[in-house]
């Protein structure tokens, strides 16, 4: 099928490798990938800060570009939630309402798309390490993604998954992390503590923004835990 891969702003500017690996995974499965080069962001930063008009300005362009695509896939739970859950609300009673709903119906987070839509769980990946998994909150609670990434990891050879004591936010929360650094940092610290307690070498997540936050904290405080996106594991054959 024809898959539209929408790499949101921070993946585009900070983690291009993740998106390239997603391209390869889809192509290896025999699908055709295209990338909307005119799009940069889903509008979530403005939306979550309460600037809904500015969010609409960005989102309307996304809707116009992608509403008639076959399937739109994002390597990020929170950007997917933005399109699936909040575009319809943001454009309710506007001329774009119908297109927003159409788009919401065929937009997927990467791991959910593989498992729930393509019914693929084994990508033949090899990754020799003990890891723990961090559920990005929007993927988990807005989209109900919990089992999908675990299903994919269970087929990765050499990988052992150890769960953390509790499921908890990493403290990123977009502009929250800048407006309330003292709280955001405390939350992140507690996340890293929980991950270290598992004895895992890596924190894996399907959301790069959480990983960016955790990485930034761990680096500053010289805490020894590696971070990696699920897609990189699925593309690995070491």
């Amino acid at each position, binding site marked *: 099928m024809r898959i539209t891969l929408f*790499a949101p*702003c*921070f993946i*585009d*500017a*900070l*983690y*291009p490798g993740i*998106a*390239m690996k997603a*391209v390869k995974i889809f192509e290896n499965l025999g699908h055709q990938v295209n*990338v909307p*080069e*005119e799009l*940069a*962001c889903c*509008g979530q*930063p*403005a*939306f*979550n*800060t*309460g*600037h809904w008009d*500015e*969010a609409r*300005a*960005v989102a309307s*362009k996304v809707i116009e570009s992608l509403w008639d695509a076959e399937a739109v896939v994002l390597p990020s739970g929170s950007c997917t939630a933005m399109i699936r859950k909040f575009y319809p609300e943001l454009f309710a009673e506007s001329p774009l309402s119908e297109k927003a709903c159409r788009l919401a119906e065929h937009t997927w987070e990467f791991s959910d798309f593989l498992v729930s839509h393509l019914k693929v769980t084994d990508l033949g990946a090899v990754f020799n390490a003990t890891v723990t998994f961090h559920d990005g*909150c*929007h993927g988990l*609670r807005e989209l109900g993604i919990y089992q999908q990434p675990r299903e994919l990891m269970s087929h990765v050879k050499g990988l052992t998954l150890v769960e953390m004591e*509790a499921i*908890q*936010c990493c*403290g990123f*929360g*977009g*502009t*929250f*992390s*800048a*407006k*309330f*650094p*003292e*709280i*955001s*940092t*405390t*939350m*992140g610290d*507690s996340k890293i503590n929980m991950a270290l307690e598992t004895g895992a070498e890596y924190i894996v997540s399907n959301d790069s923004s959480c990983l*960016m*936050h955790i*990485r*930034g*904290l761990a*680096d*500053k405080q010289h805490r020894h835990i590696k971070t990696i996106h699920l897609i990189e594991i699925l593309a690995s054959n070491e």
Partner: protein
Amino acid sequence: MNNLAKKFHQDAAHMAENVALRNVIATGLGKYAEGRDKKIADFQDWQKARETASQIKRESLNNLPQNIQQLTEKLTSRGTHIHFAATGSDVCRIVLNILRQKKAKLMIKSKSMTSEEVHLNKALEKEGFKVVESDLGEFIVQLRQEPPYHIVFPAMHLTRYQISDLFHDKLNSQPTENPETLTMIARQNLRSQYIQADVGFTGANFAVADTGMISVTENEGNSRLCGSLPKTMITLIGIEKVIPRLEDLPLFLPMLATVGAAQNLTAYNTLYSGPKRPEEPDGPEEYHVILLDNGRSRLQKDPVYREVLKCMRCGSCLNVCPIYKSVGGHTYNATYSGPIGSVLMPKLFGMAAYKHLSFACSLCCACRDACPVKIDLSHLLLKNRETLSSQFAPKYEKLAFKGMSALFNHPLFWSLGKKLAWIGQKLHPLIEGSAIDPAQCWTATRKAPKLVWHSFKDLWKKYKS
């Protein structure tokens, strides 16, 4: 930034340092989810129970005036005095009048967050009346002269050692590490006060419209004593707590116990329908019910925020909120803390004063999923943000987001922006994390992520050609 916001930041920063206190909170709430989930498993279908509870509350709020009328008619017919209080100061005035009329000196209270909302104790004490809290947690925080730390567990921030020291200081008791002994010390102290009290005061969890009853649930039996030993009894309840039918309680009572304290049912559940009848051996001779509005009917008229009035103050959203766990209850500096407080406080007591609370949230949605009556708390916080940003956002923030929209919407600007940012970042280490770093709010505690020269768009173009 207003003073409340400044203080919030300061106190949150102190809490970040106060690992010991955060550990006390973590231990207190640590086993909450596990215990609650065990009790949830006893429900045939928890999600359906939540949906039903939410529907009943909604129905009840949609017909609020009729329900209140039914409730008060029934209560009055059995000799209860009904008082309507439009504001908090009305409540204080009404209670003061009753105390004066009864020539009372001492009022004994059981737990009531609504009385905290209207600052009742302060108002009564100012007029020379003695008020004693009889709920163990409330008793402790009253001795410390501080507000409750949590809407269900008022003294959860204290260790038994601290409580022992407090009792030793204020009640001259022997130091002890034994929680049961501590409880006994409090009970002994309270016993004589129940006898001496002229008036007993309780909060309430539900008011049943069709039978005209006030439902109080508690674990210590103290509320029952407040309602049976003194000659006069007063109950304060927010108007939103009315439920339509007695037959709704078999859903709400176990639900409240489950999410509130991981119990199947709270130890004591009492229904008050009026003062003592001639044939009854005990109960108050006079019963007063005060129905408090304090902004609630304004919320009731708002189709979006009406949802908040479904709240039954179970505390579940606080227990799962990572912000609450990080900053603790007192940092909110608000009667209602945690997610429900962050939604409710600005709506009831002023958007401008409490606006920071709507932003002090990572939008993780744990509160929404934990709420037994399905209040979409995280989304209401987002709604608050929308209102606030259009009214109060600093000019530079508005401009920044406008600029960002333009940047995102023009591919050329975006690719140029990325390159410029990359160059900028090369110079960044010189100031990273320092006071003149424009990204200091991030870099003071976190390393900045490294921008790449070749973005995904660049790589993709190359790959395609």
